[in-house]
């Protein structure tokens, strides 16, 4: 990066034993991102002071940090309550069994309101189910579209038609259909969960489908010829040739899909009232206390960090699955 011979003015600093190129690498790796974050926090707190809302001043970094602590404290308090509840229940059941051996103890779940941490888990669980559902459909369908030009021609108008549809347009339809069809006395999943997961699935189908189709259709002709000469049957052809060579594109699609799914989920949960992060944001918005905005900001950062972590996990998964360990993936 720094070619000291061509810039003699900088030689002064090199003479002092200050290795510019090493410094350059370190600054690029750690110092510059930190600097970016610091500048952002500074600007945020400066701007926040000047924004007055009906719920008071817009929260700055300090208030948001405070609320992060209080959400964690609430979670721990709630967990203690739950532990105490289960301990009491177990004790009571033991007593009743001791008095009357024929009594079958009833185990009831703790019914306290879900805490922020529990809502994060609900969201993660919902997005994963929706994403898995979409991938199970999109990858095989993408392979079919990539292998057969006719299948692609048949599917393409539908893909182009449904790809840009917002989750908010799907949601009412999905809600009504789920209410009408998912009827059971002892439902395994709540309706709000099913609705949210299906909405997520509908929106994150497309990037995986399109990228898989492109990846499969752009396999090296020589490798296809090898397959023809060997007379590989369809299954062997897909396992030995198609999948390994389109893994990078499939994963590009999966990563885009998961990103979209996570974004869509928040909106879906708001409207479907699935007890995840979306509902948290909505409830805080409706609550309208002086702390609400700071708590929503906590949710905003949480959503961002989890989205980033999910993408990194997909990246590691791609590197683990891919045959080409030297390939640069980002």
């Amino acid at each position, binding site marked *: 990066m720094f070619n000291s011979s061509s810039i003699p003015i900088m030689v002064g600093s090199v003479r002092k034993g200050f290795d510019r190129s090493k410094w350059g690498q370190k600054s690029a790796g750690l110092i510059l991102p930190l600097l970016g974050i610091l500048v952002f926090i500074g600007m945020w707190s400066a701007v926040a002071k000047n924004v007055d809302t009906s719920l008071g001043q817009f929260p700055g970094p300090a208030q948001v940090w405070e609320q992060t602590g209080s959400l964690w404290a609430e979670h721990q308090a709630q967990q203690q309550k739950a532990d105490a509840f289960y301990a009491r229940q177990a004790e009571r059941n033991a007593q009743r069994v001791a008095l009357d051996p024929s009594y079958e103890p009833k185990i009831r779940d703790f019914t306290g309101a879900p805490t922020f941490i529990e809502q994060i888990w609900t969201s993660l669980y919902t997005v994963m189910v929706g994403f898995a559902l979409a991938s199970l459909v999109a990858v095989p369908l993408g392979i079919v579209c990539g292998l057969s030009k006719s299948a692609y021609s048949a599917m393409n108008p539908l893909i182009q038609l449904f790809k840009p549809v917002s989750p908010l347009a799907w949601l009412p339809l999905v809600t009504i259909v789920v209410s009408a069809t998912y009827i059971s006395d002892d439902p395994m999943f709540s309706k709000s969960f099913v609705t949210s997961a299906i909405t997520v699935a509908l929106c994150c189908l497309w990037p995986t489908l399109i990228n898989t189709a492109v990846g499969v259709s752009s396999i090296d*002709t*020589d*490798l296809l*010829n090898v397959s*023809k*000469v060997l007379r590989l049957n369809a299954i*062997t052809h897909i396992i030995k040739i198609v999948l*390994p060579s389109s893994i990078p594109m499939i994963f590009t699609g999966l990563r885009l899909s998961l990103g979209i799914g996570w974004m869509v989920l928040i909106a879906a949960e708001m409207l479907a009232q699935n007890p995840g992060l979306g509902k948290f944001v909505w409830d805080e918005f409706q609550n309208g206390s002086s702390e609400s905005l700071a708590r929503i900001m906590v949710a905003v950062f949480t959503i961002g960090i989890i989205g980033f972590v999910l993408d990194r996990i997909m990246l590691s998964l791609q590197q683990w699955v891919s045959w080409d360990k030297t390939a640069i993936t980002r």
Partner: protein
Amino acid sequence: MKKHHLELSQIGIDFPTPKGPFNALTNVNLKIAQGEFLSLIGHSGCGKSTVLNIVAGLYQATYGGVILNGQEVNEPGPERAVVFQNHSLLPWLSVYKNVELAVRQTRNGRSRKEIKEWVDHNLALVHMTHAKDKLPSEISGGMKQRVGIARALSMQPKVLLMDEPFGALDALTRAHLQDSLMEIHAQLGNTVIMITHDVDEAVLLSDRIVMMTNGPSATIGEVLDVDIDRPRDRIALADDTHYNHCRHEVLRFLYEKQKKVESVSSRTTPQRRQHQVGTDAA
């Protein structure tokens, strides 16, 4: 008298273009005997690869057909194994697994143990046993081509089709592989059709050299018999008058009779992969 076991009869092919069909090959007739080593030579874009692809079954001839042991062939199959120019090994499989895939496809009722022995045998034939657990990206170009040959041989093909097998290699590696190929051919006696650009390679390896005219509507120009005794030694042959006469014949065909004038503006790669019909010859 050897019997003809591979016959190319009146082969011609048209490629569809927006301006109507483009006749790339016409009236290609060849009778090839069992165990014969045949080279196809000609300028780039003249349809050598197209001939090979038709014999392999990867292209369908528009006119005429290919007859192998009395039966017409229309689709690719392991009895006509192909050694591709750029090796075409599956990059995610090790050297061993690449050959094993071919052996499994043509197992002929082999047991697990026999499959392993057969893979090892073919890798030994091309002197690649030492690198059998390496990935293709970890070995040199010459080694990859050796594995490509081992994979083709492991299918026990009736005809071995080689599309400029050594074209992408440096001269020393090429000489090594040519010697290996002569050895293997002497040992197994497969029928071989090889495409080449290299006059020395054609004369050294072949029993017959088929020289093709320039396209469009390319066809066979001349056929040269190379009756030099085997085994052939490249150093001894360098001063051999008959060898030099053969070289001379091929060179004269390529550079006098079929002299190719290629204008710079219309230069495109010959239609090898994209089914793109070259406009360079027009």
